[in-house]
């Protein structure tokens, strides 16, 4: 899964680091570090983080390749499938 965080928009609320700690981590009090190529297994957590971000700073793309790798394809339908996320 590819993702990018608009760090101009990010205000360090750390919701993502709480919901998807394997992908997002706070570095110091306010800086965010994230893995721009998260493992497809993190999908549920990352989707939760995208939805929870108070400033909608996370852009996520779930590629076809990710879909193929995912164990439970039936889970995809409800999740807005392809490019979820905000600006």
């Amino acid at each position, binding site marked *: 899964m590819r993702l990018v965080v608009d760090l*101009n928009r990010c*205000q360090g609320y750390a919701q993502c680091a709480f919901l998807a700690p394997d992908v997002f981590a706070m570095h*110091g009090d306010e800086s965010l*570090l994230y893995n721009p190529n998260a493992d497809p297994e993190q999908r549920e957590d990352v989707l939760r983080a995208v939805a929870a971000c108070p400033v909608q700073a996370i*852009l996520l*793309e779930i590629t076809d390749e990710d879909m193929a790798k995912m164990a439970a394809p039936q889970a995809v339908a409800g999740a807005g499938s392809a*490019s979820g996320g905000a600006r």
Partner: protein
Amino acid sequence: MRDGSLEHLKREGRIVVVGASLAGLRAAETMREKGFAGSLTMIGDEPYEPYDRPPLSKQVLLGNAVADHTALPRRRAIDADWRLGVPATGLDMAARRVRLGNGDEVEYDRLLIATGVRARPWPNAEEGALQGVFVLRTRDDGEGLQRALAAGPRRVLVIGAGFTGSEIASACRERGLDVTVAERGEAPLVGALGGVIGEVAAGMHRENGVDLRTGVMVTSLESDPSGRVRAAHLSDGSTVEAEVVVVSLGAQRNTEWLAGSGLGAGPRGIACDAGCRAFDVRGIVTDDIYVAGDVARSPHALFGYQFLSLEHWGNAVAQADTAAHNMLSESTDRRPHLWVPAFWSSQFGVNIKSVGVPPMGTEIMITQGSLAERRFAAVYGYQGRMIAAVTFDNCRWLPFYEQQIESTAPFPPPFSTVDRRSDGIKPLPADFPDPSVPTHGPTITLSGYSPADRKMTFTPGR
């Protein structure tokens, strides 16, 4: 003119985007979103699909992410003809053709130029080619430097303490590596944020164990017999032994390929109007050539219509969107690019963010928090108005200051009740050096032709 030509362009026109990075990709997405159904060609000199650069000096150097895994997420499919790994080498404006490095030519009806910048190389090419000498701009640079740091060099030397140089030094310290930073200015970040903030940055370097040398230049690099860098000689007569040297001297704009084309392109970028349309060398705006991202310089109403060149991630996104919109709009539907400059940097565990144009400021005032705690907000003043703000670990206040800047609020600011600590009482000189002094370039360049500007000479064409 509503003669149907726009509809024709949207249906079956040819759009060529030169530069396949953040700005190019975002523009392409916007064009498709706006219903462009014609052919879209994306030309990029790097062999990779668009990827994100900021992680290269942060997550990647820390080993938290891999350099070849920063490909940008797509907002939508863009159905483009990708020409990657081939640079554009020329432009024929009359024939509306872009020439490529492999001899191919691509014709366009609308052209977007988003060729960005590259790292300024070490001035001595032979020394710059030594093993162990790096710059940091591309994915390959990031991968190479990450590998060199992972090998555990005895000392790293970073030349230039701008944002990138400081982030590299920070990553080195976090990895437990000894690092020396050499900066020609009086402090890190001084070119971008001035002397008052530069002093805070210097404190961060030193407290985190960086061997910071300011007011010095690296005069030469020395190699061992096998062609590996071994040491650097400094202008104060000292020598720094280092196995890895990172040259972080700011950026150069990728405009050489436009030389002789008739487009208004030069070392400061490509001049365009507020609607992202490029100027030709005669100062006449073109109808079919647009510019976005780091390579553009455009006038900004909030900052005295100065031409601004912004090496900022957010500018690439915003300007690409505006350029793409305008490329597919009637003239009365076009939008100006009036994005307020904003950037961030993460170093030594501190989140530095800024809005506005700090180098325009003549005064600075700490409005909240304190410099000593390294948690504060400061505003810059210019001719009695607020022109920029910077925060260290205090970013939630930034939207407030942005709105103040946008509404040309007075400086010094009238709100005295937000914080009453001693730093905030009165304005201080912002203390920006002559822009030619710091080793690092500012990430915002005021590139209008002011009469006081003696840095550029006009060279008429043949």
